[in-house]
């Protein structure tokens, strides 16, 4: 990489050292000379003052010399500034959107995160904007700071250097949670970054029960969407009343844990009516069986996963910057116990009580100012850009916070 790219920080630091160095000398001289004069020309030591009204030469000297000094200071400062502004053409570009009171970073492939992950030893250019008020993107370690202005795009660039973590702080006052509008630049080795970038979101990581079913090829014969293949669908299988044929006799059983376990380990024992006896027995440990049945309990879709996806969205979209998940008060009401809570609100200046059901929560996300919970400020921005799936995941997450 071009060596000149690395030293924006060092150019700024050179300006710091030069200005501080010269300033210290000036301050020291002024102070020392003043103290010496106070001592040497005190009334006791010098009872008769001289009558000097000025000295043109002296004054010209201390006009011209400071002009040269500040000229040099200006120049060093400008060189540092230029280095901070001239992003290399091959910079890796990340988009950053600031909002009250969190940061959202978007990568070229559309992935988003609340921390800024960047590959090591790469020039990084961050495109900045804001959706509400002015914030300022500040990473002290890289000497970069730039306001994020609504309706406008600004940028910073820095060289990421060695793998490490650096603090991101909001430097433009933006309201009650300003001091908590923090994040991190996480510099990781290039390979690790690529892996992270291309990994699907955590919410899509399948649960272990599903993994086992895949591993054993179960989905070749059983669907998860209710359609019939060779065997009955997994959709809604758990607890389903099922007509089976046992030793030629029909009977109805409930597909409970025991039945399901038996159907996997000894499939021939009970054959569901309408299906052939084709399934081979599977040797699985008790633990593995438990995971698979856990998957079935979720109706073919694991419940824990939805909560996890919602949690990730809440973090990524900055919801948790204002809404706690543990019942503590931040800027907005806590998510804990929010679902179906009776809530006193104000709508168009009128007070009323509503139940925080799904419709209410959807409207509160899309049009927060419509119903304002008593005791809180109407300061939440509209989150109209969230997809219906995201909102659904959020609500499922909230409903898990009891």
């Amino acid at each position, binding site marked *: 990489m071009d060596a000149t790219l690395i030293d924006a920080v060092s*150019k*700024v630091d050179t*300006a*710091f050292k030069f*200005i501080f160095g010269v*300033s210290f000398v*000036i*301050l020291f001289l*002024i*102070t020392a000379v*003043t103290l010496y*004069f*106070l001592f040497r*020309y*005190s*009334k006791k030591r*010098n009872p008769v*003052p*001289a*009558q*000097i*009204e000025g*000295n043109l030469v002296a*004054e010209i000297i*201390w*006009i011209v010399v*400071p002009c040269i000094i*500040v*000229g040099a*200071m*200006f120049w*060093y*400062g*400008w060189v*540092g*500034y230029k280095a*901070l*502004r001239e992003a290399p053409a091959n910079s890796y570009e990340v988009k950053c959107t600031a909002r009250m009171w969190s940061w959202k970073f978007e990568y070229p492939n559309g992935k988003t995160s609340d921390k800024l992950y960047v590959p090591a030893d790469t020039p990084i250019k961050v495109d900045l904007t804001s959706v509400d*008020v*002015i914030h300022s993107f*500040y990473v*002290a*370690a890289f*000497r970069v*700071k730039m*306001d994020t*202005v*609504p*309706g*406008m795009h600004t940028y910073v660039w820095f060289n990421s250097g060695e793998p490490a973590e650096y*603090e991101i*702080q909001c*430097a*433009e*006052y933006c*309201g*009650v*949670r300003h*001091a908590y509008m923090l994040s991190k630049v996480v510099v990781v080795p290039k390979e690790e970054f690529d892996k992270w970038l291309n990994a699907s979101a955590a919410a899509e990581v399948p649960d272990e029960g599903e993994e086992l079913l895949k591993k054993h090829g179960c989905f070749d014969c059983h669907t998860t969407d209710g359609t019939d293949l060779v065997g009955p669908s997994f959709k809604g299988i758990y607890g389903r009343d099922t007509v089976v044929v046992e030793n030629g006799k029909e009977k109805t059983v409930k597909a409970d844990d025991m039945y399901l376990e038996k159907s996997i380990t000894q499939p021939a024992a009970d054959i569901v009516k309408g299906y052939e006896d084709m399934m081979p027995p599977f040797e699985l440990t008790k633990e593995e069986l438990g995971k698979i049945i856990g998957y079935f309990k979720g109706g073919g879709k694991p419940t824990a996963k939805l909560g996890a996806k919602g949690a990730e969205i809440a973090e990524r979209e900055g919801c948790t910057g204002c809404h706690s998940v543990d019942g503590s008060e931040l800027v907005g009401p806590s998510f804990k116990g929010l679902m179906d809570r009776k809530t006193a609100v104000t709508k168009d200046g009128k007070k009323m009580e509503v139940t925080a059901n799904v419709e209410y929560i959807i409207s509160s996300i899309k049009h927060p100012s419509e119903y304002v919970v008593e005791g809180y400020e109407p*300061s939440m921005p509209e989150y109209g850009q969230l997809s219906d799936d995201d909102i659904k995941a959020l609500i499922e997450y909230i409903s898990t916070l009891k």
Partner: protein
Amino acid sequence: MSSNSLSFWEDSGNGRTGIMAWLTTTDHKRIGLMYMYVILAMFIAGLCLGLAIRLELIAPGRTIMDAQTYNTVFTLHGVIMIFIVVIPSIPAAIGNLVLPIQLGAEDVAFPRLNLFSWYLYIGGTILALVSLFTGGGAPDTGWTFYVPFSEFTTTNVSVAVIAVFILGFSSILTGLNFITTIHRLRAPGMTWTKIPLFTWSLYATGWIQVLATPVLGITVLLIFAERVLGVGLFDPNKGGDPILYQHLFWIYSHPAVYIMILPAMGVVSDIIPVFARKPIFGYKTIAFSSLMIAFAGSLVWAHHMFTSGMSDTAVLIFSLLTFVVAIPSAIKVFNWTATLYKGSITVDPPLLYALGFIFLFSVGGLTGLILGSAGTDIHVHDTYFVVSHFHYVIFGGTGFGMFAAAHYWLPKYYGRMYNKTVAKVAFYILFIGFNLLYFPLFIIGLEGMPRRYYDYLPQYQEGHVISTVGSWILAVGVIIMLVNLIRGFTKGEKLKGRNPWGAATLEWTIPTPPPLLNFDKEPDTSRKPYDFQGVTPDE
């Protein structure tokens, strides 16, 4: 006893007595004192808010207040200190007391307008206080009222900006009054090169007040229009531009810094020669540099906006102009130091406070170079480095200038002297407390501690703890100083002579305390303002 031998305390001149004699007075000395009393009360209020901020920041997390309260406290600290205390402090209080007499005039050019300015000041102050307790709660925007935040916040910003608007008019009218007085009411023989440097500095200040303050008036009215009518000048959702607001705000608010500091420079220029018994070094250079600061200082506003997203060309221009304005300030410091050379120096309290000014202002000015330089400003902008720099300039500069002025001139007006030893002790405590309070903030600012943070990362705590302890020492110094002054002016030793310090300007040639009509005989303008030959202290 002729009426002329009564002091302005005894002779109200308007036929009224008691409080009404004060509230309807057009006497510049009484108006000056009325400004001073309100400024003092608001200074103490602002100081308490500042101490509360420091106490909150002694540890991360909540210490004594919640985040919203903290935000309103630092907003109030800023609004009160800047618009109600510092801007009127030296010009309106000390300026009113001293300026007409230094020129050999009986009063300012428009005495009734002068009283009206005071009422505007009181009205603005009351409205600012009203904004705390009404509407959606005290403003939480910071003293800068940056949009779009100040448009969105539900707190009482609309009332607060109207208060600032009214206070601005008070400042404009005072400036206009002083400029006119200096042009029209100089005593015969008081040529431009005989005007004392304090009055010269008020002349330069007056022009800034008259020319820059209207921009502030327009800007805050526009915020009001944005909030009430939703006009959309600054709101990007309606096609407005938030950066435009910052330009308008700083076109006033940077020159306002010179409204604050120039009069303090004038105070120091008047005090140093008196206690060195030697003419000021380079009178014309100092007078001219005040005008240069007023002029160049009006062209540097956007150095507050290097990180705002404005063009690199603008950054280049404003960085360069900012360094230009550093020159006249540096010249003044060198000339003050040179004035001490071969003097015959007595370190009385006024000189001590003036020397404190020179040191603290120099620290503030030199750290300002870091902020003027574009590359370094990006790093320290909106951090505690700026907070510290600003307090060194405004508290260390204007604040100590005001203290120096109080110790220098007020004995003349009260006719009594304070205890000089206590005044010196108070100075040293103040000076130590001040540096403990603000110097660590430079360090944590350089380390990246942003300003206006209610809570902070643990690595910044050490600096915050030292700073908070410093704030307590500073508070002790302020209390000792104020108690000593108040005791001195009510119970202190009466001054018998006219000229306790042996100064050569006209205010020291009239009776102590001054009579209602300042001069009991024609002012003698033959002496240069810093010619001490043949002048001896007459306590």
